[in-house]
């Protein structure tokens, strides 16, 4: 991010950026940066917080009218509103089931409702139906793996994007069914309480010693650090990529 700002500025485009990791901005010294203390993935604040998002953007843009300096790094003074975990939150009953396929069925009304209400879904990187995604992921490390449903993608890419679509389906449905859960709580529900999360964790585990090198690289991008053991993360670091 800082590198793009540097190159654009050298070419005469004025830049200002939001920084999520302050030490990185301190070292890279982009022309203008506003550090925000928000969750990774939320550079201007949380969903539906239009006023707050505007305030963050105004603050970042204001740096463009600052007195010239070698580089500017300012701190945004507020935390993201409503980002704390909701005390006592639990996912609504019925969202989880005994199998991945049963969970997908249980989540379907919530997923469809979310899509209808918002006019939008982030499921679709693979371009496959969610049932096709699930059947592929369930079979891929089995005795009779299904053929790669996206033959134009390398198998490891299909695996990666299928996991993204599966997670997005679960999380969009759970968000629709839940009230005010934090991003962490929703993710924790997926990784700790669903068969879908367990399936991805198993695919992650299977990646470390896989006979195909590209699949071993998948260890890097299947399970977030927060939901993997230290031992697992350290094994990931040993997989070159």
């Amino acid at each position: 991010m800082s590198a793009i700002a540097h190159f654009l500025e050298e070419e005469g485009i004025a830049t200002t950026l939001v920084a999520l990791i302050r030490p990185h901005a301190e070292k890279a010294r982009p022309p203008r940066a506003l550090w925000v203390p928000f969750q990774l993935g939320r550079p201007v604040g949380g969903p539906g917080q239009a006023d707050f998002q505007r305030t963050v953007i105004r603050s970042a843009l204001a740096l463009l009218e600052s007195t010239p300096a070698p580089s500017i790094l300012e701190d945004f003074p507020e935390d993201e509103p409503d980002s704390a975990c909701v005390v006592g939150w639990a996912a609504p009953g019925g969202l989880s089931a005994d199998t991945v396929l049963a969970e997908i069925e249980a989540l379907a009304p919530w997923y469809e409702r979310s899509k209808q209400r918002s006019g939008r879904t982030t499921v679709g990187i693979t371009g496959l139906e969610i049932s096709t995604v699930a059947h592929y992921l369930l079979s891929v490390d089995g005795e009779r793996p299904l053929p790669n449903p996206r033959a134009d993608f390398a198998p490891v890419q299909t695996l990666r994007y299928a996991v993204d679509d599966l997670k997005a389906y679960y999380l969009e449905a759970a968000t629709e069914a839940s009230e005010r859960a934090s991003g962490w709580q929703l993710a924790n529900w997926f990784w700790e309480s669903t068969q879908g999360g367990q399936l991805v964790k198993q695919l992650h585990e299977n990646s470390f010693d896989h006979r195909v090198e590209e699949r071993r690289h998948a260890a890097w991008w299947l399970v977030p650090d927060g939901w993997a053991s230290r031992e697992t993360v350290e094994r990931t670091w040993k997989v070159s990529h």
Partner: protein
Amino acid sequence: MVRLADLPATKREGMERYKTPCFGTQPWVNGISLKQATVTLISTAGLIMRGDRPVTPHDPRYRTIAHSGAANDILMSHVSVNFDRTGFQQDLNVVLPRERLQELADAGEIGAVADEHYAFMGATQAHLLEKSSRKLAALLHKKGIDTALLLPV
């Protein structure tokens, strides 16, 4: 909550090991007036249009996203799993605040919003981005876009 101390220990250690680029120069464009500026958004979330091929790690090319394009057609193909996506899933503005920028333009706080925004894959190395960043700068000049707000994930 993303002070480094708040991250899982293993994630924090990964962030601390990250090789931050260092540059020998400090470029600075002078004389920007927000009320006159035409502003574009640049995201490193690996955003793509629905149906496009996902961006792979270390692909330095940028993708173009129309300011007026349907939100449902904008997907995220960033390879990292170590950031929140539930915000993006609920509100595209969390990652690509097109509506917020338009509101600032409508209120006269900025001159105009560019007709296009741009997305890179953040999972890459800084030096790989030089050529495509300079290419993007040339395009921005050609389109009369003088200012960029860059947003990571």
